[in-house]
Structures are given as C-alpha cells and as structure tokens.
C-alpha cells in the first residue's frame, strides 16, 4: 500500500494546528485518504506538539511510528523527533542558526536523511511577509520536497486567509518563495480520482451521532480528551436548538442528564475516567430506577491524572464494573469516526429500550484524530425509544412501570403522560416504585433487573470479523481503536501473502461469545490486542469461556498501536 507520512512538530500554540489543517485540507482536495493524529502535552503554551499526517490513495486507518518527512518548526523539534524519521527520510527546517539542532542534524545525516533547509525568517521578510509567516515558507518547502502540485496548497492557503486580503498576498509570496527555492525530493502523484469524503475526528462524530439521535441536552464538565465534545455541541447549538450546559462538576453532569432522561428527553454527557469516577453513583441510580442514561468515557492513561492528552484503552473494567450494586448495563466502544456516529445512536436506543445505563467508550487516539471517511448515512438507525405512547397510555396502571416481566423489561412512560404515575425510587421497591425491604419482593426485583442482561445479550449484534473468517496464520481479538491498525495490517500482510484476521467488539459488555468461539475454532493462532496493561477484554473472555489466547499484544505508554508494533508482534508470533 502506498502511503506517505509527515510529522509537523513545533511548540504548542505556535501555529502548528492551523498549518496542519491547511495540509490536511489540501491533501483531501487532491483525493488522498488521510489519518492525522495530534500529539500534544497538557499545557497551553511552551510544551511540544506535533501533527502526524499519513496519506494514501486507498483508505487507511492507522499510523506508522517512523515518518517520511519531518517539518520542524523550531530547533527543539529537530532534537525531539529526529529519531522518528526513517532512513533516507526528509527533514524540512528553517533554522537561521543551527547551534541547538546541530547534534540532531548530524544524527540525521548519519541516517542518510535529506535536509531541506532555508533561513525561513529571512525568506519571509525578503518576500514582504512578517516573521509569523515563516511557517508558510516552511509549508512551501515541504510541499516541494514531496513533489506535490503547487496549485493545491496555494488554493488552501488562499481559502484560509481570504478574509484578510493584504496578509493573503504576503502569505502567498512566502509560500511561493519556500516552494521555488527548495528541491523536489519525492515525486508523489495525486490520486486518479477524488473520492467523496469528509474529514472527521472522533469527538465530532460522537457529537453528531448524538444530535442525529435526537439528543436535546448536553451537560459537561471539561476534561481531556472529552472536552471537544462540549466545544462541538456548543458550536452546533445555534443550529440544533439544543440545550448545552457546562455545570459545576461531573456529579451534577450525570445527575442532570439522568433527570432530563427521566422526564423523557434524550440527554448526553462525555468525560474521561476521572470524571466518570464521580458519575458512578448516578450510574447505579440509573440501574435502580431503570432510567436510560448514556455516558461517554474518552479514555486517557491513568491512574489519577495520568497523561491527560495521551491515549489508552484502560477503562474497560471501569465501564463494566463501576458503581455499587448489581444491575444490567451495556458497554459500547467506538473505533473510528464512522462507527462512532452509528454507535452513539445505538447507545441511545439500547439505553431507552432496556432502560439501562450505557457507557460509550472512546479513546484520545480516536477523539482527536482525523480520518477521511465517507459522508455519514443518516436515518439508517431508527430512533427506538421503547416508550408507551399515544392510545396505549390510557390502559396503564402504576404497577406497570416496574412490573416483573419475563424479559425483565417493563413499560416506561414519560411522567405526566398518563394518569398512571410512579415512584422512581432509589430504595428497593415494588412494581409501582413503593419502597420495600422485604426479602422476597426485593429478590424478585433484583432478578427482574438482572434478567434484562439476558434480553440485552440476545438483542446485541455479534462481534465483526475483518479479513477472512478462518484459516489465518495469525488472528487477533480486540476492541476500540485496535480496529484501525488491524484493518491496515490485514491488507499489508495480504499483499505479502500472509493471512491475518481480526475479531472486533463494538458491543463489548455483556459479552457475546458465539462468533468468538467459532473464530477460535477456525483459527489456531489467536492473540489479544489491547491498549492496557492487564488485557482487560482478554481477561473477561478467558473468564467467561474456556478459550485461551496464545499471546497478548498490550500497549500502555500513551501511544496508539502503530503498524510497526503489529509487524514486530506478527513476525515473532505467526
């Protein structure tokens, strides 16, 4: 698979993101499929950050640790990332005096790296621009080094600065100077056609999924990497008419969402593990009063504050086992923006139909990573509320609300919609919600609520197989963003004539096992892939079945799985 990768590195807040955006849009307009991940520290200014962009003519989903080209905005970037540059790669930089970066440059030279260098401040000033425009000079240099057609980057820079015509003129002169004064090193051809794609990051897809599902209230307390869900929801609010509210803490966030859901609207909230810790008592309440609730956990490495702006899959156990008492719940995990849009809608449907809390897991590496994906298919997933409505409201009696039924699911109606009323009681209760502490009724009520787990399990889709279903040289089972690296790896190894396949769980808990067992039966070398230390899904699978993984590929350093992580593991275990 042909792909090329660029790492743009610089100080946090130094125009890195806007430069990255320009490159992404220009490449998208040329017809490339893209994956672009943001790496940054948990500071606003002064730390170091980068934008990793990989482009290909075919759909791609994951990144490689080594890149073809580094565009170093400052000297520190040279030092920090020179090791990420592959042998014979390209280093684009614009240092006027290379004292600080000297060692890095020598290192690069030893690796056969081709240096593309101009004194960018001088070039910017000579071209009639200002010092801030030196990044634009660098952009022109990089574009030329890759051998890309000038008109595409020119169009995107024009688009970006068109509201400031005077600056635009100078910016374009800087861009051109950078381009013309540099050497063409690679010769990347634009794809034969331009596919219809949208550039989408995980958190935005989740926000859009919630909007599409009819969510009318979003409550939040900022926490990386969930904060941008609030940003998107708030930016959408003028158009959606949604209530978007930042409140005092995560406890209140969950409580308000539950109160709103109880009354019959769809409400949503997103946080990270630490914020979710504070929400867990409300998750327990939702379990008890059988109130639908959807909470998104955008995972980052813990424990405690951990690494706020890095990625992991370490909160699966938290999602499954959090909150006191025993009750039915669903844990759903998104893998990329495309499935995030759909799974968020499913989360609301399952929450309402089964009257349960649903945890929607995402990861930093999905939340703020961009992919080019096909436009979302709307109204594919019908809104299913499981509410008694219309004429059926007339025949209700109070006891219908928590009626002991075979499936465990009782009728739910919006308070005030019927003459029948009920007590949504956090105390153990009878069928109308009246308190009870008697042994038999309380046991029966727990049985009822737990029976929903069986009904839910039956309703859930089985995990999905990527690659051929059977006879693989090596197989993997995983969830979340693992799907991305696996999709690329399956293709890569197929080209080498090695069969790799992957079983992916979107609906992680309760655990479906039929297809899993078949997968183990038909593949003899099955491994676990997970972004945590313990192998949490693996442990769940091994506890619930008599299956055993051959080996476990685990990663917990804050970084996503790269293609080279998989190559190393496969070559050692196939």
């Amino acid at each position, binding site marked *: 698979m042909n792909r090329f990768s660029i790492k743009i590195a610089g100080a946090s807040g130094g125009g890195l993101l806007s430069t990255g955006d320009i490159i992404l849009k220009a490449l998208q307009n040329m017809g490339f499929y893209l994956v672009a991940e943001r790496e940054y520290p948990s500071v606003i200014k002064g730390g170091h950050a980068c934008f990793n962009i990989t482009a290909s003519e075919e759909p791609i989903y994951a990144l490689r640790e080594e890149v073809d080209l580094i565009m170093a905005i400052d000297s520190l970037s040279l030092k920090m990332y020179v090791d990420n540059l592959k042998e014979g790669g390209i280093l684009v930089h614009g240092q006027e005096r290379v004292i600080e970066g000297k060692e890095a440059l020598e290192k690069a030279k030893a690796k056969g790296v081709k240096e593309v260098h101009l004194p960018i401040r001088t070039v910017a000033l000579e071209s009639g621009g200002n010092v801030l425009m030196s990044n634009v000079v660098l952009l022109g240099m990089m574009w030329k080094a890759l051998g890309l057609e000038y008109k595409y980057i020119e169009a995107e820079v024009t688009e970006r600065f068109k509201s400031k015509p005077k600056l635009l003129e100078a910016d374009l002169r800087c861009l051109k100077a950078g381009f013309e004064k540099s050497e063409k090193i690679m010769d990347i051809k634009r794809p034969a056609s331009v596919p219809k794609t949208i550039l989408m990051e995980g958190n935005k897809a989740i926000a859009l999924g919630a909007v599409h599902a009819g969510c009318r209230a979003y409550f939040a307390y900022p926490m990386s990497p969930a904060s941008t869900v609030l940003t998107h929801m708030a930016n959408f609010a*003028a158009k*959606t008419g949604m209530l978007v509210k930042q409140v005092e803490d995560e406890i209140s966030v969950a409580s*308000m969402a539950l*109160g709103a859901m109880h*009354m019959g*609207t*769809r409400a949503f909230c997103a946080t990270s593990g630490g914020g979710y810790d504070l929400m867990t008592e409300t998750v327990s309440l939702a379990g008890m009063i059988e109130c639908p609730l959807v909470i998104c956990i955008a995972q980052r490495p813990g424990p405690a504050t951990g690494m706020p702006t890095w990625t992991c899959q370490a909160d699966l156990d938290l999602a499954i086992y959090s909150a006191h008492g025993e009750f039915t719940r669903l844990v759903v995990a998104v893998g990329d923006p495309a499935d995030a849009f759909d799974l968020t809608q499913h989360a609301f449907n399952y929450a309402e139909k089964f009257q349960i809390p649903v945890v929607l897991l995402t990861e930093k590496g999905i939340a703020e990573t961009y992919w080019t994906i096909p436009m979302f298919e709307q109204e594919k997933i019908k809104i299913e509320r499981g509410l008694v409505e219309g004429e059926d409201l007339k025949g209700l009696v109070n006891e219908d609300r928590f009626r002991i039924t075979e499936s465990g699911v009782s009728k739910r109606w*919006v308070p005030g919609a019927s003459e029948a009323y009920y007590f949504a009681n*956090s105390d153990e209760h009878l069928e109308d919600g009246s308190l009870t502490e008697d042994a038999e009724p309380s046991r029966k009520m727990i049985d009822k609520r737990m029976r929903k787990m069986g009904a839910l399990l039956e309703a859930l889709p089985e995990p999905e197989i990527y690659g051929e279903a059977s006879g693989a040289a090596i197989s993997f089972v995983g969830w979340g963003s693992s799907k991305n690296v696996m999709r690329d790896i399956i293709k890569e190894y197929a080209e080498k004539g090695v069969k790799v396949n992957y079983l992916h769980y979107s609906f992680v808990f309760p655990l479906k096992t039929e297809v899993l067992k078949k997968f183990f039966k038909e593949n003899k070398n099955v491994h676990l892939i997970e972004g945590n230390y313990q192998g949490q899904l693996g442990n769940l699978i091994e506890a619930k079945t008599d299956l055993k993984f051959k080996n476990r590929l685990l990663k917990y350093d804050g970084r996503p799985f790269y293609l080279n992580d998989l190559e190393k593991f496969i070559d050692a275990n196939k």
Partner: protein
Amino acid sequence: MDKKTRDELIAKADKLLKYETDKVITWCSGCGNYGIQNALARALVLEGKERKDFALFFDIGCSGNGSDKFEANTLHGLHGRIISTAAGAALANDKMKVIAFAGDGATFSEGVGHLVHGVRNNFPMVFVHHNNENYGLTIGQASSTTRLGAKMNGTPGGVSIEPINTLEFVLSLNPTFVARGFSGDVDHLTELFRMAMRHKGFAYLEILQSCPTYNRLTTEDWYASRVKYVEDLKGYDRHDIWAAKKLVQDMDKEIYLGLIYENIEKKDFLSLQTNREGVKTSLVEEVKHYDVRDLI
C-alpha cells in the same frame, strides 16, 4: 387560613385526598414532615395543579422517605444530588413544575456545590430545604445547621463549631426567591409553597422543622415562641437584598418567616437560552432525527 381559601379547599377535597397514601407512614409522631406534605398538597390543589402538571424530587433522609407517600410522580434520588437531578428534569420539561426536597446534609454538606450553582443558574424549579438541624434518619448526628454545643450522636461533648446561617449563605448567591416557613404553621407554609410554585426561577424555600426524636434544642415550642412574619414588618421591602440580609442574621430571638427576598427582574436559566428563543416546545417533545449535514 381565610374563609375563601378554606371553602376552596373544602370544595376541592377530592383532589386533596388524591395525594393521600394508604401506606404506613414511617415518620415519628410529631415530625415536621406531616405538616410539610400537608401544606404541599394544599398548595398544589389551590394552584390548580393536577398530577400531570408537577413532578416531585426527593433527596435522601427523613424528608426523602416521603417520596412514595405522596401519590404523584416522584423520584427519590441520591444523597446530595437532588438539586441537579431536578434541574435536569426542569430543563427537559418546563411544562411540569419541578419541586425538590432535601434535608440539611444534602443542602449544606454533601450537595452544597449544587445548591450554589442551582441558585446561581436560576434554574426553573422550587427547592425546599427541610431544616431540622440534624441528621434524623442516620439517628441524630450533627448537621451544618446544628446549634453550637448541641450534644449529638457522634459529638457527645457537644458540637464545637458554629452552624451555617442558611439564608445568609443563600442570599450571598444573588438568588431570585428566598422564603422561610415553619412546619408548625401549615397555613402560612401553604401560601409560601404557592408563591414558590409561581416563581419562574429558582425558588428557595427553607422550612424550619421540628425533629421530636433527635433535636431537643430547637423544638416545636422553641420555634413557635420565636417565629415572626415579614408580612407584619411595616415597610419591609422584599426586593431589598440588604434588608433581607439583615433580617436573617438573627437565628435565636426573632426568626422571620415569609417571602424574605424576591427578584423578578432576573431571568431564569431557560429564558436566557438565546438559541431557544421563541421555541414553544420543551426538550421532551423534541426527540427526533436531526439532519447533521449543516454541522459538518
């Protein structure tokens, strides 16, 4: 109660009885909660509210144990969280009056952060603080409103720190409605409930409530001999926050009841949502697919 109100209640006795439960009540005899629920039922009837028009939200404690003893739509939540839960409900359906009840622990310890922001946001709801100056259901520990020196479960030598002056605290948050009632004066409390229900923003109603089992310092008689009424104060301006702040300083000798402070100028939270200006529906009526093409 005046004759007109009494006649109205007699005429609507069937509506009043609808809220009566046949379940065993679990409050001690002499508990202030009887009077409070009585006043609530009367106020709802007098305000012409049917079951479909209101929802009650209860925190944990003795007050919360009334959650299934009032035959209407209720939610019994988590300790300290009822303001948030009720606020979420009130924002979701502004066509139902949301009334929340909580004791000392929820209001001034466990959930005091939610109180601060509930008042500050001016959420469209009524909040009732049952102030019985102790934790009754956990058998008589001190609360944030227990008097200095009171010997309680867990503080046998007497409480050594001063109580919070509840209304002084609430008035510091620039509220829009602050009232105080007494569980021993049901007629007066009924009127306060009615005013609170008519208020558009966050109506804060404190009820001084006797706890015959655990609070032996500020008993029913103790309060009865000390309560005064702002209605009787000549020239008292309930829109003057400084007058209100001054009035609530005294917690020992002359304790004033009534609508102590009101600000009808400040908009409630929902009215401030510019993106929902002119929207007639409430959030519960709006769940459907929304086209996201314009948002990408």
